[in-house]
């Protein structure tokens, strides 16, 4: 059976891809952000996961408002990174793991999570930037695991509740641990932390709330399920609702986790950037 090694979360700001392209890691603006990743790299090199389940939110590349899945799971041989409208160079396709995808889909639906399966899915910065951060040179990194993308709707309300996100993660964990292959899996939760791009409140960041979330996502994620969705919008900012991906990731890891590394920095672009690596109990 497959084993879940742990989970890694990170912000997925589009400007990060550009900073990587230009080699700005030691630039004074970027250094406090990129300093959060060497420990993640070392952990990945040590454990070498075979699969990566990348939980992110599409921002208007893979899905539009004509049909907006609440939870979508990729089931493709590869995932293309395409132009999001800014004409930036796209990365080569990321290799998929359709047999794992369909195993997850079967297991999730049996557990009464109604999901949308996607045999074609273009992936945006929400999926790609974390891969670049964790596997430098991705997808052309020799340790690049095969990927299963999972996208949750945070574009249009109603978005899932924090409880639903955590429960989704728990069912995902069960699905992964029942995959009949001796394989190592890492789960990513991407997006956040607090930020707001739109309205007169654009630029809103909430350090105190982010710290509360960072503490509890490690030790007491159930406490976070008490936060209502409107409270999340109010306290994390309109786009800080991406914290749902962290909840989904956390649910998959089980009760006992060890924090390996954490980083938090304000601001990168318009965002409070957070990174966290949690290892599952063996």
């Amino acid at each position: 059976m497959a084993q879940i090694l742990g989970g890694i979360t990170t912000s997925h700001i589009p400007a990060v891809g550009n900073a990587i392209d230009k080699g700005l890691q030691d630039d004074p603006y970027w250094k406090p952000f990129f300093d959060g990743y060497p420990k993640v790299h070392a952990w990945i090199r040590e454990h070498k996961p075979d699969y990566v389940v990348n939980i992110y939110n599409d921002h208007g590349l893979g899905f539009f408002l004509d049909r907006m899945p609440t939870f979508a799971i990729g089931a493709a041989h590869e995932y293309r990174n395409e132009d999001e409208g800014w004409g930036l160079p796209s990365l080569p396709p990321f290799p998929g793991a359709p047999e794992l995808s369909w195993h997850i889909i079967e297991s999730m639906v049996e557990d009464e999570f109604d999901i949308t399966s996607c045999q074609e899915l273009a992936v945006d910065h929400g999926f790609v930037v974390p891969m670049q951060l964790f596997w430098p040179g991705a997808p052309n990194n020799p340790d690049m695991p095969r990927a299963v993308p999972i996208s949750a709707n945070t574009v249009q309300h109603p978005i899932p509740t924090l409880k639903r996100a955590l429960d989704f993660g728990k069912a995902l964990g069960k699905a992964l641990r029942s995959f009949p292959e001796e394989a190592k899996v890492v789960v990513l939760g991407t997006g956040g932390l607090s930020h707001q791009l739109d309205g007169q409140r654009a630029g809103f960041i909430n350090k105190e709330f982010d710290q509360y979330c960072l503490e509890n996502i490690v030790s007491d994620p159930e406490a976070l399920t008490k936060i209502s969705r409107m409270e999340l919008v109010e306290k994390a900012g309109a786009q800080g609702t991406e914290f749902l991906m962290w909840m989904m990731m956390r649910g998959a890891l089980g009760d006992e986790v060890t924090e390996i590394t954490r980083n938090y920095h304000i601001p990168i672009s318009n965002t409070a950037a957070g990174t966290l690596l949690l290892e599952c109990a063996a």
Partner: protein
Amino acid sequence: MAQHSHDYHIDIPGTTVFDGRMAMKGYALNKMCYDFNRAENREAFKADPEAWMEKYGLREEQRQAIRDNDILAMIEEGGNIYYLAKLAGIFKLSVQDVGGMQTGRTREEFQAFLASQA
């Protein structure tokens, strides 16, 4: 549409909750912006914005918001920031520019405001 039983619409100053009502109001505007994912559509818009807005059936208020480069008016008209970001890209505006435009700050002032929350 009163739906008080749901977790629905507490008043958050300066924040528009993009829900079904806004998604319906903004559909044509957002669809045009979503289609800017393709370079040829961006070029077509740049060549003749009025004809391109007509093609997508934008409401007059939406067209005027675009003519005025007024982000807050676009949001009022149902625009969602993730799609509007693609329109902003055509005008080479970063999210900090867009943040400044919405809050009455220059780009530098907006960046300083972000940093002040560290």
